[in-house]
C-alpha cells in the first residue's frame, strides 16, 4: 500500500522539481514591479533639477518654440535614465499612485508636479530625436507622453484636468512630428494602431465624478470646513474659523443631502446623450443653481463652495478628445497620401469626429498639407478649433 502511494506521488513530485529547476533563475531576484507608478516615481528621482534658464529652454524645446540646442541636448542626455523608466512605465496597464484619498481635501498629489517636468523632458527628447531623423523613436516618446496622461488618471477632477492637459500637449508634439515624417507607410500604420488602443482607455469625466463626490461627501464636516478655511490665508481663514463653532450636524447633514442630489443631477446630465451645446448650457445652469439657492436655502451653501464647475471640466474633455480625434483622422489621410501619392479630395467616411458638432471635421487642402476644422464652436473659449497638418513629402 505504502509503495503504491509513493509511486503515485513520485511523478508529480518529479515534475514539480523539474519546474522549480527551470524557473529558479527567475526566482533568484524579486520580480519587476507591475505598477507603472513605481517606475514613474523612480523616474522622478532620476533627473537632475535644471536651473531656471535650462528649465525654460526645456519647455520651449518641448513646445517647439525653439530648436533643440547643445545645452538642452546635454540636459536631456543626462536624463536618459528618467526617460527610460518613463518609457517602461508607459507600456504598463496598471498604475496605482498610492494616493491617500481617505485624507479627503488634504490628500496630497505630489506626482502631479513631477509629472509635468517629466513630460517636458520626454517631449524635448522627442523633438531632439525628430531633429536627428529618428522619427519612429520620436513618435514613441509622444505616445509615452499620451500614456503618461492616461496613467495620471481620472480618480479626481484635478488629476483628470492634468491628464487632459498632458494629452493635449503630447498631441501637439505628435502632430508636429507627423508633419516632418518622411513617407513611411509602416510607421503610419503602426501609429494608427497605437492611437486606437489609447482611445479605448482614455480618462473620462464620468469616472472622475464618482470619486470626487465621495471625497466631498466625506468632507462636508467641521474638519472639512477647517481645511477649506486654510485656503484663504490667516486673515480671512481665521475669521471663518472663529465662526465655525456655530456650524452643527443638522446643517452639515442637509448640506450633504443637497450636494449628493446636485452631483447626481450633474452625473445624469454628463452621461446623457445630449448634444455638446445642450450639455454645456445645462451644466452651466446647474453650476449656477447652488449659488442661487443659497440665498434662501442654507443646505446649498457648501455645495456652492465646493461643487466642481463641470461645464468647464467637460469642455476640457471635449477639447482634448476632439484634438485626439483630429490626429487619428489625420493619420488616415496621411496613409491615403502614402498609398496613392496624393491627398484625398474629400474626407473619407467613418473617421473620428469633431465632438463639438458631432459631425465630421471640415477638411481643406493647403499649400503644405491640410487642415481639419471643427464644425462646432467651443462655447467656453468662444472659438472654432482647427488643426493644421503639414506634409514633408
Amino acid at each position, binding site marked *: 500500500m505504502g509503495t503504491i502511494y509513493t509511486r503515485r506521488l513520485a511523478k508529480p513530485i518529479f515534475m514539480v522539481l523539474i519546474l522549480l529547476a527551470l524557473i529558479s533563475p527567475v526566482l533568484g531576484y524579486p520580480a519587476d514591479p507591475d505598477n507603472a507608478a513605481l517606475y514613474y516615481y523612480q523616474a*522622478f528621482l532620476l533627473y*537632475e533639477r535644471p536651473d531656471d534658464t535650462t528649465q525654460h529652454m526645456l519647455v520651449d524645446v518641448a513646445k517647439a518654440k525653439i530648436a533643440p540646442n547643445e545645452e538642452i541636448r546635454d540636459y536631456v542626455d543626462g536624463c536618459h535614465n528618467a526617460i527610460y523608466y518613463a518609457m517602461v512605465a508607459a507600456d504598463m496597464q496598471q498604475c496605482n499612485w498610492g494616493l491617500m484619498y481617505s485624507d479627503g481635501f488634504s490628500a496630497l*498629489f505630489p506626482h502631479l508636479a513631477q509629472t509635468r517636468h517629466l513630460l517636458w523632458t520626454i517631449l524635448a527628447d522627442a523633438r531632439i530625436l525628430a531633429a536627428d531623423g529618428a522619427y519612429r523613436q520620436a513618435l514613441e516618446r509622444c505616445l509615452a507622453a499620451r500614456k503618461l496622461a492616461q496613467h495620471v488618471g481620472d480618480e479626481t*477632477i484635478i488629476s483628470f484636468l492634468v491628464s487632459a492637459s498632458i494629452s493635449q500637449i503630447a498631441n501637439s508634439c505628435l502632430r508636429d512630428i507627423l508633419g516632418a515624417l518622411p513617407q513611411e507607410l509602416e510607421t503610419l500604420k503602426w501609429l494608427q494602431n497605437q492611437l486606437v488602443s489609447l482611445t479605448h482607455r482614455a480618462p473620462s469625466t464620468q469616472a472622475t465624478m464618482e470619486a470626487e463626490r465621495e471625497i466631498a461627501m466625506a468632507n462636508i464636516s467641521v474638519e472639512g470646513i477647517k481645511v477649506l478655511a486654510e485656503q484663504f490665508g490667516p486673515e*480671512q481663514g481665521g*475669521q471663518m474659523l472663529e465662526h*465655525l463653532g456655530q456650524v452643527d450636524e443638522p446643517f452639515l447633514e442637509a448640506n450633504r443631502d443637497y450636494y449628493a442630489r446636485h452631483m447626481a443631477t450633474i452625473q445624469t446630465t454628463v452621461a446623457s446623450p445630449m448634444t455638446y451645446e445642450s450639455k454645456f448650457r445645462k451644466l452651466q445652469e446647474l453650476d449656477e443653481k447652488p449659488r442661487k439657492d443659497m440665498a434662501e436655502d442654507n443646505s446649498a451653501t457648501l455645495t456652492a463652495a465646493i461643487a*466642481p464647475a463641470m461645464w468647464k471640466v467637460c469642455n476640457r474633455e471635449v477639447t482634448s478628445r476632439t484634438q485626439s480625434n483630429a490626429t487619428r483622422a489625420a493619420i488616415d489621410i496621411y496613409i491615403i497620401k502614402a498609398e496613392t501619392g496624393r491627398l484625398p479630395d474629400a474626407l473619407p467616411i467613418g473617421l473620428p469626429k469633431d465632438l463639438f458638432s458631432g459631425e465630421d471635421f471640415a477638411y481643406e487642402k493647403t499649400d503644405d498639407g491640410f487642415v481639419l476644422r471643427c464644425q462646432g464652436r467651443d462655447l467656453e473659449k468662444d472659438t472654432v478649433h482647427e488643426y493644421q497638418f503639414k506634409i514633408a513629402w
Partner: protein
Amino acid sequence: MSEQENEKWLDELIRRSIETSKPVFDVEQWKQKYPDEFKTLVQRSSRASSRQLKILAAVFRHPAAKVAAAAVIIVAVGLLIVRPGPDKQVSAPTAARSPAEMITAISLTMAYRRGGMEAVERQLDRTLDRLGPKPMSLSLSQLLQNSNG
C-alpha cells in the same frame, strides 16, 4: 453680538475680501445702449432689495438661523475670493505655504476655481521649484561603490 454689529462685521469682511478699487460704470451710456434692460432692472430692483432685506433680517433674528448664517458668510467670502471678475486675478495666499500644502486636493481644486488650468499648472510648477534637486542617476553599482568606499 447685536444685529448691527453682525452686519458691520459682514460688510467689513466682504470689503476686505474683494477688490476695493471700484469699477467705473457709465449708467447713462448703458441706459442708452440697453433701454429695455434698464427698464426691467428698475422694475426689479425695488422687489429684489426688499426680499433680500427680509432674508437677511430673518437670518440674523433667529438664533438657530445664526448657525446657517455663519456658513453662508464663510461660503460667500470664499466665493468672493475664488471667483474674481473676468479682468482681475486674485492671487492665492501660497507664498508662505509649504510645497506639500500646495499640492493638496483642496488647494489644487481652489487654484482651478480661481484661475482655471493655468492656475493649477502655475501652482504645480511653483511646488516643483521648491522640492529641491534630485540626483542625476542612482544605479546599484554606484551605491555599492560608494558604500564600499
